[in-house]
């Protein structure tokens, strides 16, 4: 029997085929569970005209902000782009140089999950009667109002996990899960940045959070990089 091994030799190789114009999901909540080294590899790779789906828009000049600064991002889909220090997002937004699709955080998660689960969309009560439901289909079910929110898939998901096995099974560190497990399910190609990779069978099957079927490539963090998380 042969051995399945989804390990990728380098961060650079892991992102090498990301094309201009791609829709790219990036896991993380603030700096928790964010794949900083994959983002840096994407910045160096240089793909442009990207649509980024992520909860936040980056702060200072690291993470997603570094992609914004480099002019690689056409559009961002997120729930909370404006954080303390999100200077690059604010600069581009004020100049009209970036498109923003603002989505309530739970709706963002359900739209991502729907894409991964093969659903066309969900009816959520979130946002009903607010500006963020304008132009969307609504429906009253058992007397309660709901908004139709459609599936949000991506070409690529860049995610951060704690540990992988060679089959691509993943476990996370504390609150570092956030969007990572659902984004893993929703992209054509899912690439996971991890602290280390172990053999098949070394992760407790009761405790695996992301089954390997959702993961295409696993890459270990490079300790020498200045952007190590």
């Amino acid at each position, binding site marked *: 029997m042969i051995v399945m091994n989804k390990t990728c030799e380098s961060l650079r190789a892991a992102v090498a085929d990301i094309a201009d114009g791609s829709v790219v999901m990036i896991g993380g*909540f603030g700096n928790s569970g964010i794949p900083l080294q994959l983002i840096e590899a994407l910045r160096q790779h240089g793909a442009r005209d990207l649509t980024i789906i992520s909860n936040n828009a980056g702060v200072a000049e690291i993470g997603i902000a570094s992609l914004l600064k480099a002019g690689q991002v056409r559009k961002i889909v997120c729930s909370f782009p404006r954080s303390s220090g999100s200077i690059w997002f604010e600069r581009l937004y004020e100049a009209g140089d970036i498109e923003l699709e603002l*989505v309530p955080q*739970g709706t963002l998660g359900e739209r991502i999950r729907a894409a991964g689960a093969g659903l066309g969309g969900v009816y959520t*009560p979130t946002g009903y*009667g607010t*500006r963020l439901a304008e132009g969307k289909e609504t429906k009253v079910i058992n007397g309660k109002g709901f908004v139709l929110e459609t599936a949000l898939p991506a070409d690529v998901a860049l995610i951060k996990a704690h540990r992988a096995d060679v089959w691509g099974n993943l476990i996370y560190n504390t609150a570092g899960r956030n969007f990572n497990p659902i984004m893993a399910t929703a992209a054509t190609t899912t690439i996971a940045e991890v602290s280390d990779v172990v053999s098949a069978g070394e992760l407790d099957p009761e405790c695996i959070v992301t089954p390997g079927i959702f993961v295409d490539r696993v890459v270990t963090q490079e300790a020498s990089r200045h952007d190590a998380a």
Partner: protein
Amino acid sequence: MMRLNSDEMARRVAQDIPDGAYVNLGIGMPTSVANHVSDDRLVIYHSENGILGVGPAPAPDQVDPDLINAGKQYVTLLQGGCYFDNAESFAMMRGGHLDIAVLGAFQVSERGDLANWATNDDTFPPAVGGAMDLAVGAKQLFVLMRHTTKAGEPKILNQCHYPLTGAGVVKRIYTDLAVIDVTEEGLRVRELYGDNTLADVQALTEARLLPPL
């Protein structure tokens, strides 16, 4: 007029959080409510980024960079707490599993409409986060805010001028002047601090206030 300071406001909300409750505290002043819950109550705090059983801030040498709350402050996990992903976290919020959510607000209307995520300043980029999900989902939504703006304008209005977070979602308002319930009949004053009178508080409120029962 008696005006509570921030600590006193947070303490007042804390008194109404029962033992065993599952609670989400919004960013800012609501987060400080946890500091005032008495030690004889076990309250389980939920953080939208995927924690149930949020504990106090860690010692500086015990920080886990991934273990933050919704306000991006470092936290710890209580014994009995656990982690989960965004979908499960918001299932808890939207699905009615949290007993109480405490949120700040720009404005609240007499029907309990909540406006707390955006002003009408379109040059300022908007951000919504998890506020709308909490607003529709928690069993009881408490608002904790100053009674008026810094300029002295009322924040409890006939209707909100700012974009809504949710319609008819607020259950109770805790301000620096009073505690007010949103009821079928309208805004019912539940408690006036110190010697504040209904007339005092009404003068700083656009919506009509009903007297305490």
